[in-house]
């Protein structure tokens, strides 16, 4: 190649670069523009973020009668978030993603006042309290009834106990009576919660039953339309044996239904071993998905997370008209309450329905779980909807 050729080629390259129509880092011009008349059905504009992402109807809809038709006055600057099976009302506090507030209504006593206060205290890294202290604690109005007011400051460890956020504050109201347990909880950075405590109390006092829309003070027409108020944890506890939360099942021989437990559609004791139990949880949406939840279960058993390929190879069974992923994990079980079961086995099934995820979990000593495996599969396959 001659000495003249090289500059010629370099010049060509520089010219080509100079002719490049767009600066890679600067603003780009939108060139394509068209005006046309769409034919057919297209998604409507004007939906909220939650509606656009399909979070406004997490569970099968209940009528207003079923739900009790709760309404409330939304504090200024707060945002309504999608509801879930355990959150009949759900809010983002003053746009601060670290601060949230939600209402949970359960049938029965929901474990009682003391147990729930101590659960909250544990979440905040505080020692348990006693009945005597509770008796002298202040009260405020929640759903038209007096409720126990707690105000805790500490290190927030999260629902699962695996987070640690210093300088957090929890303000909550608890009321048990009339066949229901009602909890309103606000959690977030201490300064934000202090700032919003009065708004929280005003919100608590504003909850009422019967009206069709909430007062946002914005003049919007029924902005809460479509928000699920079924409180799916409620109706199931009063239902006949064999059905709850819109689910029905056939109970295997030797399994005994226990008293209702929070978050669970049903819990069974298996045999006489108190460390063995099987329960069903129904959550709105994907609840994190099968992959994440199965790996969470593996973590509870002291096992490492599965890879994608390992997850794909897990057993599938028919359940609720679709396929459920079944996992079996051996190890030492560490439950939500730090309870340990050595030589344990966990059998789990996760099933994704269009609007909700169903989790069935059998946990207990290895021998007992092994002998109950077929019962577990049969139970999962017996689950039906509309019970």
């Amino acid at each position, binding site marked *: 190649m001659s000495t003249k*050729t090289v500059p010629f080629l370099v010049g060509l390259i520089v010219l080509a670069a100079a002719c490049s129509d767009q600066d890679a880092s600067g603003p780009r011009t939108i060139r394509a523009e068209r005006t046309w*008349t769409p034919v*057919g059905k297209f998604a409507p504009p004007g939906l909220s973020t939650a509606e*656009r992402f399909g979070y406004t109807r997490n569970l099968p809809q209940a009528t207003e009668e079923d739900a009790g038709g709760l309404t409330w006055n939304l504090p200024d600057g707060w945002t309504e978030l999608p509801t879930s099976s355990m959150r009949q009302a759900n809010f983002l506090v003053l746009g601060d993603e670290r601060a949230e507030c939600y209402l949970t209504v359960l049938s029965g006593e929901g474990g009682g006042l003391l147990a729930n206060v101590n659960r909250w205290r544990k979440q905040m890294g505080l020692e348990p309290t006693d009945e005597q202290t509770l008796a002298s604690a202040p009260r405020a109005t929640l759903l038209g009834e007096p409720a126990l007011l707690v105000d805790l400051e500490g290190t927030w460890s*999260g629902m699962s106990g695996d987070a640690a956020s210093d300088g957090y504050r929890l303000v909550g109201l608890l009321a048990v009576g009339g066949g229901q347990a009602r909890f309103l909880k606000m959690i977030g950075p201490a300064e934000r919660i202090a700032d919003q405590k009065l708004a929280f109390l005003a919100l608590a006092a504003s909850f009422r039953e019967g009206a069709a829309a909430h007062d946002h003070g914005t003049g919007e027409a029924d902005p809460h339309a479509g928000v699920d108020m079924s409180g799916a944890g409620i109706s199931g506890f009063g239902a006949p044996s064999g059905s709850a939360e819109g689910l029905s099942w056939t109970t295997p021989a030797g399994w005994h239904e226990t008293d209702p437990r929070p978050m669970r559609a049903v819990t069974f004791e298996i045999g006489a071993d108190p460390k063995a139990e099987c329960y069903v949880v129904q959550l709105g949406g994907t609840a994190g998905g099968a992959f994440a939840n199965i790996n969470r279960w593996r973590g509870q058993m002291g096992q490492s997370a599965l890879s994608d390929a390992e997850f794909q190879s897990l057993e599938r069974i028919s359940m609720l008209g679709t396929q459920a992923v079944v996992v079996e994990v051996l190890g030492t079980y560490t439950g939500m309450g730090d309870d340990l079961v050595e030589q344990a086995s966990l059998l789990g099934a996760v099933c994704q329905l269009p609007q909700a995820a169903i989790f069935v979990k059998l946990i207990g000593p290895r021998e007992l779980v092994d002998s109950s495996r077929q019962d577990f599969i049969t139970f999962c396959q017996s689950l039906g909807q509309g019970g």
Partner: protein
Amino acid sequence: MRSIVKGIGQVLSSFGLSCVLLILLALLTWLGTLEQVHSGLFEVQKKYFESFFLVHHIGSVSIPLPGANLVMCVLGVNLLLGGIIRLRRSWDTAGVLVVHLGIVLLLVASFIKAYHSQEGHLTLYEGQRANVYESYYRWEVAVGHTLPGGRVQEFLVPQEDFAQARGPAPAVLESESLPFHLELSHFMPNCRPLPKGPMFDVAVPVIDGFFLQTQALQKEAEQNVAGAYAAVVGPGGTRTEGVLWGLESGPWTVDVAGESWTVDLRHERYPMPFTVALDVFTKEEHPRTNMPSKFSSDVTVTEDDVARPVKIEMNQPLRDEGLVLYQASWGPSNAAPGDPLFSTLSVVRNPADQLPLYACIVIAVGLLLHFSRKVLGYMQSEARR
């Protein structure tokens, strides 16, 4: 310099190069087929057949290879130089010359298909109609607003203009016709929106209580659902932020200067010059099985207020206005007996749609010419004996 050009010309026109290129094409086809065990069709097509260079991995060994795109370009040059320019032009070689022309035509057809075609699908339930079809893979952001008479004005941002904005640094998009500019950031090829609680932190913005969580890319590219964060910056710097997701139920709506605008992340949409309405979808099954033996769509095609019925079935596509609509699939696959079914028509706009057919005819004529002449020559030589 002249000797270099001559040397390059000789190499490019050589028969040996033809053999190497054809072997490379066969090798790429074989490797690409094997690769589909691990990657989806779309990824394999991009890596092996639409690329100029690629690296194939066998265990820990990396093998650099030319992509099929490069090989076919060189093959085209090789055929032109070797088969047409260098070939001795006489009646003896006329057939071979025609065959070379036919192969060049095939390559031209593949070039046009690769760079100037649009491919997508039209999915309809019975009773539904549409005048656009959607890409399987490519995403676009459409900024639009409604005009009187039900018309829509849209400003379209192709995927290339925002797909690089994977982090907080936004791709800034503007138009003289828009009263604002659009910023797109945190583009994720596969993700899902989740509500944010206080129990965990996320590294991306949280808007209206939601954030986008990135997901592993799916093997089949059409299963990925893209997402991005958007900001509309209006007059005076007023800024409104939103989250876009490919499977959202409706576009993000934002008011700017008293006018309502929609911003939608979606698969690229291509307008059709006619409207297709699905009247009846028919699925026949093999006896005593759920295996479909035949499925077809009875559609009504309406253009300029003139409607005509058309039956689209396997190997009987609808060809109209440069578009070809094939019966591709149906669903939902888990539908119970009696459930409504949808029909998916694969839609292709390919200016070179018929070119491969013409190329094959040219090649057949060339071969006929060549072998006829050979047979005649043989018969004449036999007769002379």
